[in-house]
């Protein structure tokens, strides 16, 4: 009998962990469904970029981080922010350009940061220019290492984003410096209207990593536990000084680029095939089949998630817009602007009373 090779990092997940993963994926979808309603009601300012069909990979990859690691999410990684404890209300206020949003109405959707003075999750906000976060997160890893902290920096990049120069430069820098960086590269079949075959002459997105001489693997991005396992392995390597890794996730963008996109260029058979591989439905079935939860347990989580998303949206909707006379304040450091985002624990974490994983500062020493 094989002895060691069959163990998976997810083997160590408790029942509550497994239910929490389900809850986070569910909540991500519910928040976006609520945003879609607000969008149709013209209450969302600007576009709405959904992660429908790929919530699982954002959630499961970020779940491999310790509580006070650093994550940088792109517009389709709402799930990662939810895992790190970003309160949904913050996301709703961002989309509705409220004066009390984390950027006070200055930037949109998931473009916000949370950099706590001590302890807690670090969220580094994105800019629109794809690829730019990869070198930035390499630098977060560099800074942490120089300060003697075993922090892991995780970020995401789409199939399209991997074609940028910034992606390449950041990956290479992280590789030669052996920085604690984990990059989740999402093959969701399209970059806006452009298919992956127009982005790269590679069979698999994770092969990008060959150019940097770093570990990489490709996983079924709609299998939440598989994503967790691969991400956890990468996180452990990073935490123990073994440098950066790239995890390729095979998934599918089930909506257009944004809600206003007519999706005409998208392959219908491809969409149908992936519909049957919905990550949340699959994980739901897995939990029931393995008798970790009953249908009733999961229905309770569904109801709880939905109610929470709605309540948070309602709170956000009632918030005021920004005051016009605040526009010029805070262009330079020292003026006044200290954004804060409330960090919340899931009901499962509260029940356990323990952090998801050992805090970054204690691990790997």
């Amino acid at each position, binding site marked *: 009998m094989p002895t060691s090779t069959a163990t998976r990092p997810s083997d160590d997940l408790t029942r509550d962990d497994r239910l929490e993963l389900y809850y986070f994926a569910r909540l991500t979808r519910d928040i976006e469904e609520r945003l879609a309603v607000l969008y149709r009601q013209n209450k969302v*300012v*600007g576009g709405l970029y959904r992660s429908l069909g790929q919530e699982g990979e954002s959630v499961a990859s970020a779940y491999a981080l310790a509580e006070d690691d650093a994550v940088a999410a792109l517009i389709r990684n709402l799930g990662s922010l939810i895992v790190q404890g970003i309160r949904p209300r913050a996301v709703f206020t961002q989309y509705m*350009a*409220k*004066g009390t949003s984390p*950027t006070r*109405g*200055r*930037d*949109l959707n998931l*473009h916000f940061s949370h950099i706590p003075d001590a302890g807690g999750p670090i969220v580094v906000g994105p*800019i*629109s*220019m*794809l*690829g730019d976060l990869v070198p930035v997160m390499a630098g977060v890893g560099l800074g942490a290492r120089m300060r003697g902290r075993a922090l892991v920096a995780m970020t995401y990049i789409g199939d*399209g*984003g991997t*074609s*940028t*120069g*910034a992606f390449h430069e950041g990956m290479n820098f992280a590789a030669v410096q052996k920085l604690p960086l984990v990059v989740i590269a999402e093959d969701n079949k399209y*970059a*806006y*209207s*452009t298919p992956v075959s*127009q*982005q*790269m002459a590679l069979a698999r997105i994770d092969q990008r990593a060959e150019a940097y001489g770093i570990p990489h693997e490709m996983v079924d991005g709609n299998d939440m536990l598989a994503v967790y396992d691969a991400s956890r392995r990468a996180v452990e390597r990073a935490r123990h000084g073994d440098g950066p890794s790239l995890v390729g996730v095979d998934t599918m963008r089930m909506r257009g680029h944004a809600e206003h996109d007519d999706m005409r*260029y998208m392959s219908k058979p491809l969409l149908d095939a992936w519909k049957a591989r919905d990550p949340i439905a699959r994980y739901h079935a897995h939990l029931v089949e393995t008798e970790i939860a009953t249908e009733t347990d999961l229905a309770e989580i569904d109801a709880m998630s939905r109610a929470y998303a709605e309540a948070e949206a309602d709170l956000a909707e009632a918030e005021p*817009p*920004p*005051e*016009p*006379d*605040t*526009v*010029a304040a805070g*262009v330079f450091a020292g003026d006044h602007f200290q954004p804060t985002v409330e960090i919340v624990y899931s009901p499962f974490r509260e029940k356990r009373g323990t952090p998801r994983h050992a805090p970054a500062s204690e691990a790997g020493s």
Partner: protein
Amino acid sequence: MAVITYLDAISQGLRDEMRRDENVIVLGEDIAVFGGAFKVTRGFLEEFGADRVIDTPISESGFTGAACGAAVEGLRPVVEFQFADFIACAFDQIVNYAAKNYYRWGIPMPVVFRGPSGGGFRGGPYHSQNPEAWFTHVPGLKVVQPATPYDAKGLLVAAIRDNNPVIYLEHKHLYRRIKEEVPEDDYVVPIGVAEVKREGSDLTIVTYGAMVHESLAVAERLSREGAECEVVDLRSLSPLDRDAFLTSVRKTGRALVVHEAHLTGGFGGEVAAIIAEQAFDALDAPVTRVAALDVPSPFAAQLEDAMLPTEEKIYTAARDVLEY
């Protein structure tokens, strides 16, 4: 002559040039199958084929450099940036490669770099910028910014036929909002030639891009109040038609310079300096600028409106100059 939108005028100019000259190609993200994020190149793939209408990877620096190389080989590429903000990702290829080739080696670089710029669209800090001044500082680049459908088509045709790299900034907020009659046949609006969009004797408003429309609205309002403004639309920033606004200022004795880009280091400073140097004796009031605040473009409507120059702000400044 048909009445068409600013966006359709750009499409028409581009299509006509591609029909006329098979060396004209277009490249950019999502421009072929999808027809572009704003649909400027809708139907181009079907008409001109995948060799001339190229969907690129998200590699601004890469496809900009490749366009310059293709120009060395005799093509006349038109590069689309999905938003003008992303031109920053190709900055080096434009300012160091494209701009300096002719001066050093005598190699012409007939490439057009075009993209939707400007605010008022609630696009936030990365989909609202007006980057013209990043490029007007670079010798060897031409920079144009049309305000009307007629100029949009004529300037694009001129840019494609020009043997120099041209930064062509179209204002996304004008795309479907501004319509006028545009000739179907071949014409150019020469680069480097401004146009007086409205004549007047009391105040010169020097402007370009989207602010031409706000300035014309202000001129209309002031006319009802008894003051006549002359509105000079620069159309090209580089090369600059100095005579056009100097002649006007010598006539009116008062100058207001208006643009949507940030105030500090904005192109208006250049115009104001030229007026101060060359028409000082004609001035009855200080040259005054109206521009966006020196703040990144904020997302929320309340903030963006506070940041952008508006008709109201132009009106107030114009009154101050008139009453000085």
